[in-house]
């Protein structure tokens, strides 16, 4: 069988989720850049404009899923990189829980921002 170049062993749920989130992020990250730098221009971003976008349910849901996918993909990616660098034992467990807590915090904060922007447009 052909040699694989993955940094970590395939077949696990995290391995699968890393790739599913990657495929989703390819689309949403490109969309995010195109919308907020090329369609709208970053220097012209206002609270009213952001609130208007978040009042659209499809945009709100897409952004929440984008945040969830980016948070998982990023923190899991760091964890994989650390494991790949040979981190084991207690440092590995500490890294895992620091990343879990950091991921939850950034996700919750992102949701608070999204809800604020969505609520402000009502």
């Amino acid at each position, binding site marked *: *069988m*052909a*040699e*694989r*170049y*993955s*940094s*970590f*062993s*395939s*077949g696990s749920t995290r391995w699968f989720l890393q*790739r599913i989130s*990657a*495929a989703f*992020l*390819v689309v949403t*990250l*490109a969309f995010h*850049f195109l919308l907020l*730098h*090329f369609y709208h*221009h*970053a*220097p012209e*971003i*206002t*609270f*009213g404009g*952001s609130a208007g976008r978040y009042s659209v349910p499809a945009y709100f849901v897409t952004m929440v899923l984008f945040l969830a996918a*980016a*948070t998982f993909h*990023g*923190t899991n*990616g*760091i964890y994989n*990189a650390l494991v*790949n*660098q*040979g981190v084991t034992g207690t440092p590995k467990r500490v890294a895992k829980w620091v990343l879990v807590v*950091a991921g939850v915090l*950034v996700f919750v*904060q*992102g949701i*608070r*921002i999204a809800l*604020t*922007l969505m609520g*402000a447009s009502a």
Partner: protein
Amino acid sequence: MSQSHNRGLVEDFGRWREFSAGMWAWVFHKFTGWVLIGYLFTHIAVLSSALSGRAAYTSTLQGLEQLAVVRVLEVGLLAVAVFHILNGIRLLFVDLGVGLDLDTQEKSFYASLILTGIIVVASVPVFLEGL
């Protein structure tokens, strides 16, 4: 069966002369990944100004956009995001068993680099507009 590779420590900077295209792809993907997750935390921190009200959000974002260094850093962010996306697509295809042979992997890595360069250079005027 999948198989992991012992690539040694990237921190051994003196090894860079020995790197093949595949190793550079691996190093660049890790580096851009670290930058992107770092930026996610920074981005959420900046957008948290929304919790302080309309004026705080608008003035924070527009104030940052008036800084030339922020615009230049945004071009850098675009570069790492585009490379991570294009190389990520390449890796997804490799995981699906498409383009596994070494020659195709190297060519698709170089294509990712060249396309990243073209997209970034073409986007510079948009990112620096109004400075």
